[in-house]
């Protein structure tokens, strides 16, 4: 049942130009950065004489592409997540889901998975693109794997938050703006507390936890952070929809 909802969401993502355009633009951006990264690699490395200054091609190119991805997704995910529930609210199609034999958990998780599946296409694309470096070089697949996992968890968290804001309003644009602001704050939160590394507030920031994945470190504490973040917002969304049924 969860799969049916996810399939429906994926289908509707691809039945409007929005999905295709976002996908195409993002792939274009990643491709450009990838090419630039390779070009720069030779320029920079030919200037780097001391061994300490040298980095592998995977890390050099990966850093630019994954860095760009986490930044661009800040804009892309709210645009994709905004319509998940608020558009159903506006078009009054929610009764279609509510009167089908589905629990709210299935509806919310299904919608979440639909969006995550869409975003996974991009993660997969980046992974494959970077793996092509292996044609002429010996690359670090562990680095790509850890970054892909990090990006996946990051985007899933973005989606969960976007889904929640989408359930709050019947105006998709309002949902997009709200989730963008919230995501942006969560992204840069650690910068404000840079002076105090032990600060609890800094621990809430996405970047703080994404960074360990970005350097190739898979830390269970960071995985837990993202998983808890996702679960929290999915539960909030379920509760919001349940309130609809109770309060009308």
């Amino acid at each position, binding site marked *: 049942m969860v799969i049916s909802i996810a399939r429906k969401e994926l289908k509707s993502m691809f039945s409007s130009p929005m999905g295709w355009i976002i996908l195409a633009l993002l792939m274009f951006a990643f491709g450009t950065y990838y090419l630039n990264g390779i070009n720069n690699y030779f320029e920079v490395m030919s200037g780097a004489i001391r061994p300490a200054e040298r980095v592998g091609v995977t890390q050099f190119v990966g850093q630019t592409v994954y860095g760009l991805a986490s930044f661009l997704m800040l804009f892309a995910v709210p645009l994709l997540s905004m319509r998940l529930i608020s558009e159903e609210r506006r078009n009054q199609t929610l009764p279609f*889901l509510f009167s089908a034999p589905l629990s709210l958990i299935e509806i919310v998780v299904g919608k979440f998975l639909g969006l995550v599946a869409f975003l996974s296409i991009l993660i997969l694309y980046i992974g494959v693109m970077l793996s092509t470096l292996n044609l002429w070089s010996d690359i670090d697949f562990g680095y790509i794997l850890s970054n892909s996992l990090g990006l996946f968890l990051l985007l899933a968290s973005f989606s969960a938050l976007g889904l929640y804001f989408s359930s709050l309003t019947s105006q998709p644009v309002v949902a997009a703006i709200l989730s963008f602001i919230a995501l942006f704050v969560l992204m840069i939160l650690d910068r404000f507390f840079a002076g105090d590394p032990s600060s609890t507030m800094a621990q809430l920031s996405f970047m703080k936890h994404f960074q360990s994945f970005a350097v190739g470190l898979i830390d269970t504490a960071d995985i837990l952070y993202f998983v808890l973040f996702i679960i929290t917002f999915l539960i909030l969304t379920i509760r919001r929809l349940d309130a609809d*049924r*109770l309060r*009308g």
Partner: protein
Amino acid sequence: MSDFTVEAIELTRLYGGRAAVSEVSFNLARGQVLGFLGPNGAGKSTTMKMLTGNLAPSLGSVKICGIDMIENPKEAKKLIGYLPEMRPLYKEFTVDEYLTIAARLHNVPGKQIKKAVETAKARCGLGHMSKRLIENLSNGYQQRVGIAQAIIHNPTVVILDEPTVGLDPIQIRDIRTLIKEIGQEHSVIVSTHILPEVEMVCDHVQIIDQGKLVFNGDIDVLKRQRMGNKLLLGFNNMPEVAAVAKIKGVAEVELTEENMMRVAVAEGETPHESIVKASVRNGWGLYQIAPDQTSLEDVFVQLTYQDGESAAEETAA
């Protein structure tokens, strides 16, 4: 277990302190078509939302084929097909895609989905629209897609909220035929404020006003009110009221507009022939004699603008 497909037990819904629906109870048996009547804002849609589990009742409960909607919503919802007042259509999909999704969400087994979609399309006359985007369909066809969506999983109870609003007369006729057809195998609840429609498709009527059930009974009771009770007469030479009132079987005479009078018929009498004979004898110039078509509306107005209980008794008597 009970024989009823739908049991509503003292349904109450409060918005703030105001009761949108209060203590509505009724039962529906298999193969019945129930018409739900009421003026705007009477609580028809609210009741239907509660029946389908879209809205939690403040008090009371709903049972679908004996399964409680609140305790076991998934099982209960499997048995229901619902078309809300606002059609829940995903306009970016084609008719086929949309109905496939509807079938999948209603647990139609994978192998039967295609067949279910074909059957639903055939029943709603959508065969030639399969590949069209729902967005591009006319209002009437969109409504048909809405109905197809409600019957795709072959539910025991079909609930349609104002299914004929905004359709042209031919489409209305088609949809009424469809409702009758569905009503033979399933239980159907139709809400409407068009009275003749109720008479055409329903065999059971409920009138709801200000959240309260003011009439619950067989369509025949209403039909008798409409058909047998009053006659509309037109004369070229207007006779004395007293002269008409003297005719056997005439209970009451009331002048309406110029050269017209409305005659109430006493219970069990058929004064039609006597009226015609009297007209011929006295040269009244009778040019119209017909059952009073407005009287069903009268019944409705009577029921909804009077004190609820006394009206219900009056009609039932």
